[in-house]
């Protein structure tokens, strides 16, 4: 089959559902193709607005969101996060000591590939690395303090564009490729890939929901999801989505999820952080 141009590359990946290109061949080219696909699919959406997910592509949903954003329900979590962020550890140090710029305005740089340890480090993982390095117990992922902390850190990065780097290291390219492969692979009882909904189905309805485009999809995290009635991190959404797609959810911060986050974030380079956010 012949497909023309960049749109064709992405469309082919979706249709073939898992026959990904040679791993890590060219993240930059994939990113360009990805962004171009969505810009072509949604020509009326301002590029920066992709960080607003379903609200960028549906006016009726957007109105409800704007109504709720007059006084966002994550307000309490933000305060809790700020307090937690500013509270010293037992050893006198604090989160600020673990991050560049004291942890303020750095969220858009995560995840990054740590060449020393050879692994993808997400913001959540970095927070717990900070805690254990300072004699504190790690926080449970997905909800609670981890969600509040990442909410505060995201807020300090609001409007800063994603700036994910893939160092010139075959392991980094492999992690990117692993995330890309995960994204396009069909799995579970419903045989859906992430792309089935967030590329093919982007902007369309799935019962009451409008599917968010994959471009910029992580920009609003962590989110106060009305469905949860509370804050949740990227982990919370990955595991719950896996379960809802009737595929085995992986544990939070599983290497496959971290690679997925790495891939999705790199694909969204240039899209401003819109988090913390609210979603249905």
């Amino acid at each position, binding site marked *: 089959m012949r497909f023309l141009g960049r749109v064709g590359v992405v469309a082919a990946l979706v249709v073939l559902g898992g026959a990904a290109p040679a791993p890590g061949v060219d993240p930059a080219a994939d990113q360009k193709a990805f962004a171009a696909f969505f810009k072509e699919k949604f020509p009326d959406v301002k590029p920066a607005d992709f960080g607003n997910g379903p609200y960028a592509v549906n006016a009726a949903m957007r109105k409800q969101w704007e109504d709720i954003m*007059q*006084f966002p*329900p994550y*307000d*309490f979590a933000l305060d809790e996060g700020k307090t937690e962020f500013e509270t010293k550890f037992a050893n006198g140090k604090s989160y600020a000591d673990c991050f560049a710029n004291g942890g303020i305005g750095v969220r858009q740089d995560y995840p990054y590939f740590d060449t020393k340890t050879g692994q993808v480090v997400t913001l959540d993982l970095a927070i717990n690395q900070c805690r254990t390095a300072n004699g504190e117990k790690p926080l449970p992922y997905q909800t609670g303090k981890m969600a509040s902390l990442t909410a505060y850190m995201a807020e300090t990065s609001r409007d800063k564009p994603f700036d994910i780097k893939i160092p010139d290291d075959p392991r980094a390219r492999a992690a990117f490729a692993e995330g890309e492969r995960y994204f396009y692979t069909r799995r579970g009882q419903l045989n859906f890939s992430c792309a089935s909904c967030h590329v093919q189905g982007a902007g369309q309805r799935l019962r009451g929901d409008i599917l968010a485009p994959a471009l910029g999809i992580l920009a609003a995290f962590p989110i106060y999801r009305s469905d949860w009635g509370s804050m949740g991190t990227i982990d919370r959404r990955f595991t719950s989505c896996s379960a809802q797609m009737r595929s085995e959810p992986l544990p939070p911060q599983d290497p496959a999820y971290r690679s997925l986050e790495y891939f999705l974030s790199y694909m969204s380079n240039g899209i401003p952080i819109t988090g913390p956010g609210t979603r249905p």
Partner: protein
Amino acid sequence: MASTIRVRAQATGDSTDVQALVQHPMDSGFVKDSSGNLIPPHYIETIKFEHSGNVVLTADWGPAVSKDPYIKFSFKGGAKGDPLVVTWVDNQGKTDTLTTKLA
């Protein structure tokens, strides 16, 4: 202990715009927890807004008001620095109050 009440009250010349967000579960009593037990009803029944000693709004709520309830209204008058007192009472007899100043 942080207040459960957040208020944004803006005096805009001849009137004041008020928005409030309250941290409260607003449990209806109809929903079960993960063990299958009914979560008992726990919702704000009444919330009152007083500007400089005058009640400007009283809301009677039931469990159909969303979790972390929100309210938006406006009243005539009000000047920057005026006191605004917000008080709620829930069905379990719990209460909270916040005194703030108009911006």
